[in-house]
């Protein structure tokens, strides 16, 4: 069975490496600050006791007052998993550092989040729309999206 890391457990690892990080946890979720995403990601991948070498998925949820970007991670070496989340405030230009450098598999997934949810990823090598065409008005997976196309 894949062991799911509890947020608190993972937080202790991160606190040891980044003593000034603001962390929050609940069950198996752990929230980190958006500006720290990339360095924490690199740490999670390289720390020998964690080795989260496989990025399952990058997801985003629109909670109206903020966007939540989630990283589902798995370690093939230790067969354990974790969920790392971050909250991004603001609806005009929400943005998170890209983790493509750490896990190249994030490439299309971050483009998809940008396309459909409108959360940008700083440092992404090719951040453009993936499913919809350039010039599409808005980001359809946002809760306040209204269909603007006339049929």
């Amino acid at each position, binding site marked *: *069975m*894949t062991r799911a890391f509890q947020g608190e457990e993972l937080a202790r690892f991160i606190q040891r490496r980044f003593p000034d990080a603001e962390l929050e946890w609940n069950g198996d979720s752990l929230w980190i600050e958006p500006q720290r995403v990339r360095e924490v990601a690199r740490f999670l991948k390289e720390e020998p006791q964690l080795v989260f*070498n*496989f*990025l*399952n*998925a990058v*997801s*985003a*949820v*629109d909670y109206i007052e903020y966007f939540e970007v*989630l990283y*589902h991670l798995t370690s*093939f070496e230790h*067969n354990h998993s974790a*969920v790392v989340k971050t909250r991004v405030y603001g609806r005009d230009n929400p943005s998170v550092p890209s983790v493509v450098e750490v*896990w*190249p*598999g*994030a*490439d*299309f*997934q971050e483009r*998809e989040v940008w396309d*459909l949810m409108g959360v940008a990823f700083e440092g992404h090598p090719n951040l453009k*729309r*993936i*499913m*919809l*065409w350039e010039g599409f008005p808005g980001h*359809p*997976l946002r809760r306040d999206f209204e269909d603007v196309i006339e049929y």
Partner: protein
Amino acid sequence: MPIRTEPVTINIGPQHPSTHGVLRLRVTFDGEVIVDVEPIFGYLHRGSEKLAEERNYVQVLTLTDRLDYVASMTNNQAYCLAVEKLMGVEVPERAQYLRVMTAELQRMASHLVAAGFLLQDLGALATPLMYCFRFREKILDLFEMLCGARITVSYMRPGGVFADAPEDFWPALDRLMGEAPELLGELEQLLMENEIVLVRTKNVGVLPLDMAIAYSISGPVLRASGLPWDWRKADPYDVYDRMQFDIPIGDRGDNYDRFRVRIEEVKQSMRIVSQCVEQMPPGPIRTKLPLVLRPPAGAEAYGRVEAPKGELGFYMVSDGSIAPYRCKIRSPSLINLTVLKELLVGWKLADMIVTLGSIDINMGEVDR
């Protein structure tokens, strides 16, 4: 004096017959050698994730059929596992066995399609594909007996399955399992040692293991690169922990290995199906649940299965209403394509089509 060449950019697709659906590849060639590849998606984008937010939990199930439409059973399974996690529902044993059995039959069907189309891409026009389809057709007939549909099955439900197998299903399944080794053996004999298949696939499109992991590759493509990682074993769901099966792996990660791993997996799936038939317990096939499901507000769950194409996951968030607040689909086909550029640069046009076929994508799932 050397001949000077200039790179040429060509659009392949969105309707090229070998592109497995409406995928477009913008490829830059230097002579016949590929120097850059950019896949362009979205021609089949239906906004499944958005549609899911406007339907109740059982209605969303029909959307999942249309993701990877050659493997609807496993899509159903992943979705049901996510919803059950969200609600904290237990599934009766018989339903779990029926799920595992149908999922494995579906895996066989999907891998046969993959193998058939790969051979089609190699230039073995129509005949081998029809051999594969003949086998798959028999599996689809079984699905029709189970639920009345062949492709968009919607067989599973949160809490169990839609209906028990009818009486004449079991003899029909026995007949298929009896003739399956022969059908597969024929295919293997014809093709696995075929000179042209070997020359065109061995050492072509090599994917090293560390690159595969870094690029989040899953499923047979990952296993062909040499890592015996299968969610059915690593994190068993339903009754996979009671099943005896091996994880076939490749040693080089080339097109041939990906092809071979799929054929071997079909054999393992046959083993699992016969174990399911042997162990099938009597009992209910569905937990009693309200007609309209309302998971607790704030609940979230990530349900995943080892789909024929890789790790298929559903990340669901509930706000306590009858429709999911968010239903994110982790599609293996899309994510496996991330590595396409690394695989293709330096190879020739003809290898491109074969390599793409060996990754085995389904556009319904890539675009969603």
